[in-house]
């Protein structure tokens, strides 16, 4: 049976090659496509959470009230200690945001002072993403400031110039002078013209000793990626450990807009996948089906010499399976090799900036899940077999004489 199928495959060399090639192309294309879908989704998740953290600890009333000091977490040290007891292996970014008036020698603007103290890894990533010139204020510094590039332009100040900050109605110094040490670039101009970064200690001295606006918790997965389930679990533990004095939110709760954007990826990709799959399906069906239609005549002959319909169908099935398996194997192999060759990251040449502006990661790490491989292979095999069995079925229903005269 299999030997016959194998012989038949080789007898129609060109036809077999085209059919197997079509299957291989579909598998390859779909695999790479899935690879990039996963890469983009993962990359966006990484990017979004690297800005906001996976969890945020904020003041208990921070969602209800708007005034500065009612939103704060007062005893930041204790909260942090309690949090780290519960979740020891996390990276923290401590943030104190202070609305303030900021001025250079000639101009003044309303601004948002952001005091930050963060884990080394987070600091490096932040600096890489956002520092356009100079550097971030040194940790613990009381007199260094980095401004959004647009804000610095509006204030007419340059690196090394003094910058004055006045934060009325707060509990710290309320006013301080800083040296401009860095210019920051943010994709959102509205933020760039507002943002002024200090060390956390500097901001606390200025406005709210020992307080923070929020703690951003970046979970470090033991292996693989951080999933929503892991985040929910961490949230529950942190919330239980910290009590009602603060509020713990997942990044989805903290920035629902961003989460919605990520959630939109799935349906968007589903639509795109559907369009691609229809094309792939047509490709496979056409090559396999048309390759066999011509052979209805041949099947008629076989049935005429005494074989029953099932035997013919088994034969076609075996033949097609050999073809499809070969094609799938070739597709999987080349697709797999491609994906492996991109394992260290795939860069769209020249498009880094664009991708960043659109909120997309510049380096993609294509990867496929077993489910995606299964869907790909399943789809290719199923469509191919359906396309193959139809002519055999038709042949079986025809009178042998009809079949022998059959024209597609």
């Amino acid at each position, binding site marked *: 049976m299999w030997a016959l199928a194998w012989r038949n495959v080789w007898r*129609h060399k*060109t*036809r077999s090659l*085209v*059919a197997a090639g*079509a299957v291989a*192309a579909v598998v390859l*294309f779909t695999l790479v496509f899935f690879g990039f879908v996963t890469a983009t989704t993962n990359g966006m998740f990484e990017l979004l959470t690297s800005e906001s953290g996976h969890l945020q600890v904020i003041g208990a009333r921070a969602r209800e009230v*708007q*005034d500065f000091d009612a939103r704060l977490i007062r005893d930041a040290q204790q909260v942090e200690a309690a949090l780290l007891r519960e979740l020891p292996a996390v990276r923290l970014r401590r943030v104190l945001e202070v*609305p303030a*008036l900021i001025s250079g020698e000639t*101009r*003044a*603007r*309303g*601004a*948002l002072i952001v005091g930050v103290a963060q884990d080394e890894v987070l600091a490096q990533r932040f600096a890489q993403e956002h520092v356009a010139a100079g550097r971030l204020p040194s940790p613990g510094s009381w007199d260094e400031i980095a401004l959004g590039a647009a804000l610095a*332009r*509006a204030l*007419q100040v340059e690196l090394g110039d003094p910058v004055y900050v006045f934060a009325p109605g707060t509990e710290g110094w309320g006013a301080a002078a800083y040296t401009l040490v860095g210019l920051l670039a943010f*994709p*959102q*101009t*509205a933020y760039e*013209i*507002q943002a002024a970064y200090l060390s956390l200690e500097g901001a606390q001295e200025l406005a709210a000793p020992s307080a923070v606006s929020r703690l951003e918790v970046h979970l470090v997965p033991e292996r693989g990626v951080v999933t929503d389930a892991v985040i929910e679990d961490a949230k529950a533990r942190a919330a239980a450990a910290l009590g009602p004095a603060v509020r713990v939110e997942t990044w989805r709760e903290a*920035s629902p*807009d*961003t989460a*919605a*954007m990520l*959630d*939109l990826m799935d349906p*968007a990709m589903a639509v795109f996948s559907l369009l*691609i799959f*229809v*094309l*792939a399906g*047509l*490709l496979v*069906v*056409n*090559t396999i*089906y*048309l*390759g066999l*239609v*011509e*052979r209805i*005549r041949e099947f008629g002959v076989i049935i005429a010499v005494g074989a029953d319909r099932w035997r013919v169908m088994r034969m076609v099935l075996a033949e097609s399976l050999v073809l499809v398996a070969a094609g799938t194997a070739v597709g999987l192999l080349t697709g797999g090799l491609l994906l492996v060759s991109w394992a260290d990251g795939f860069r*769209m040449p020249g*498009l880094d*900036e*664009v991708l960043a*502006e*659109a*909120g997309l990661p510049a380096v993609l790490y294509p990867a496929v899940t077993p489910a995606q491989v299964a869907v790909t292979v399943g789809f290719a095999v199923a469509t191919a077999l359906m396309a193959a069995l139809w002519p055999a079925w038709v042949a079986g229903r025809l009178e042998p004489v009809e079949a022998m005269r059959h*024209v*597609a």
Partner: protein
Amino acid sequence: MTEAAPALPPAPAAPLVRLAWRNLWRHRQRTILLLAVVAYVTFLTIFYWSFVDGYGESVVESYARYIVAPVRIAADAWYEDPDPEHHLPDQPLLSMLADVPGVRGASARIHFPALLQSAYVTQGAEVVGVDPAGERRLSRIPDKVAEGRWLEGPGEVVLGQEVARRIDARVGEHVVLSAGALAGPQAMGLQVVGIARTGVAAVDQTAVIVHLEDARRLTGVPTATTIALDVARGTEAAVAERVQALLPAGVTARGVWDLVGPIKADVEANQAFAHVLALVVYAFAALAVTSTVFVSVMERTRELGVIAALGVTPRRLGLLVTLEAFFTCALGWLGGLALGYAAAWALATYNILGPLFAAISASMPTAGLSEEVYGAVRTAYVAYSGMVIAAAVVMSALVPGRRAARLRPAAAMRAE
């Protein structure tokens, strides 16, 4: 077959065409499959480009009508450093501009930074002072006041929805604006008369709009910082150029495409990215068409052998095969064009894409997407899809056509 046979031996070009045409309908299943592939590829190409171009156009449109203006006039120094001190010179620019062909309206604006204070919160804000009537013709924001009403006179302010939420201000309440520009520190209480909900994140999150007179009092700017021109879609650059001739030195008119800032690169690169992605899809599509044509030709080896035995020269046989493929593809292409343009028309007429983008819009304010994203309908799509199909036909006709041309009747008739 019997009908076609008598016309064969002399076989000038026209009967060959007729034969090819008739052959299509004899092999109905095969033809329909090829038709479907070609039509689908055409449809996909048009749909895809309608979407990509429509996105780009929608971004530019929302910059023209919500965020900036179709054409903006400002001092060169202001473009560099948008501070009220670089305001426009004291010249009757507005009346001058009214006569320029293509300018449907002109309205002065003053942009200035200020502190915005409610009973609860103070925050920095970028304020724009406008002429309420002039703005109505120019901008869509006046139509998008969700609560209360648009500005009518001095002493009033319209806030973006998110701004109002953040400072906790409601319609009917007053807020305080203070600014320090040419007039020194100035402060003013203004009544919130409207809250705008435009769906354009950049507007909803930052808009603080006051009357031009109040802006003049707060800043001390006697003229305006910019003049916004209302011009028809697509004529922005041309009108800006025409207007430029009338402007004094140091003042420049820019069309919306030059005003979108970083988004310009974004949209352009998006198109580039779209082309790359399209190439991949094209290749895949061409593969589908080619293989279908290829297989359908190959499978007819025996039939072709019969025709060849009737005396048709191999060259003409190749032509016959190619013609058949050509007819099918042309038909499929026409069908695909109809389907594709119908879909593009639907995207362009009904706001189908807008809700899809609503979620993205809020988290990317600079992208400048409004609630309305329409597909584009351009004639170029005929060419795009035509090129894909043509490439596929050429590729597929090359191999099977040559195969048919090389055919030896006796061997072919034995072939299975």
